[in-house]
């Protein structure tokens, strides 16, 4: 067979449909997803200070949404995204500095990130609801 007709045995990039989800890949995807969510979330934070700078009645309508079921789901999800992106972002900074690349370390730090973000979200809810 001539060189031109030989099939090229190139490496294939993983197809998400047939690829078994792993903790490392799922957390990586989640980091980007929470980053996108937080990009919208920071606009929500901007809206909060803009409403606070307006009249008391305008602010009350904004707070009315926050206190609704949908508003609480949004705020709870927003907090989880914040804690997750923060914790996993610190994990990324350690990688950038050259630490934690062993598969065992990557899994350990991954589970740590999951635990920290879930506990911080739950703690925020418990403390927040007690103050309301």
């Amino acid at each position: 067979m001539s060189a031109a007709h030989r099939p090229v045995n190139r490496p294939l990039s993983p197809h998400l449909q047939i690829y078994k989800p792993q903790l490392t890949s799922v957390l990586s995807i989640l980091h980007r997803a929470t980053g996108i969510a937080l990009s919208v979330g920071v606009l929500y934070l901007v809206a909060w200070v803009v409403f606070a700078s307006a009249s008391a009645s305008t602010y009350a309508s904004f707070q009315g949404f926050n206190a609704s079921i949908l508003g609480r789901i949004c705020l709870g999800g927003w907090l989880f995204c914040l804690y997750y992106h923060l914790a996993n972002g610190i994990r990324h900074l350690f990688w950038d500095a050259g630490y934690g690349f062993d598969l065992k370390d990557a899994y350990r730090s991954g589970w740590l990130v999951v635990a920290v973000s879930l506990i911080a979200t739950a703690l925020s809810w418990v403390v927040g609801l007690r103050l309301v």
Partner: protein
Amino acid sequence: MSDLRSPLARARGLGSAHDGLHHWWAQRVTAVALVPLVVWFAVSLVMLSGAEYGAVRAWISSSLAMVLLTLTIVVGLHHAQLGMQVVIEDYVARDGLKLACIVAMRFLAVVAGLGAIVAILRIGFGG
């Protein structure tokens, strides 16, 4: 094959993009800055649960909150803008549309940042 780059270009090591790792570095520096800011903000937000209009304004108008809240929003928007640029570059294939999306996203980030700064200053200085 001989290296076509000049000795200066090789020493700079920036490659064909010409500004090399500036984007990557800016994302990391803003990330480091955001670690303490986000922790401060999250704790403050939880403590403000159920606070009324007056209490929220009183909190924002303290000097510490004015400085740190402005920093959190501005640095956060900058970090978000850098990240969203990469996301758009990854998923929007057409060059013209890609550029339009990035520019529109940047405009939105600047408008949001200025809106937040004006709002915080108005609350702080009693406008």
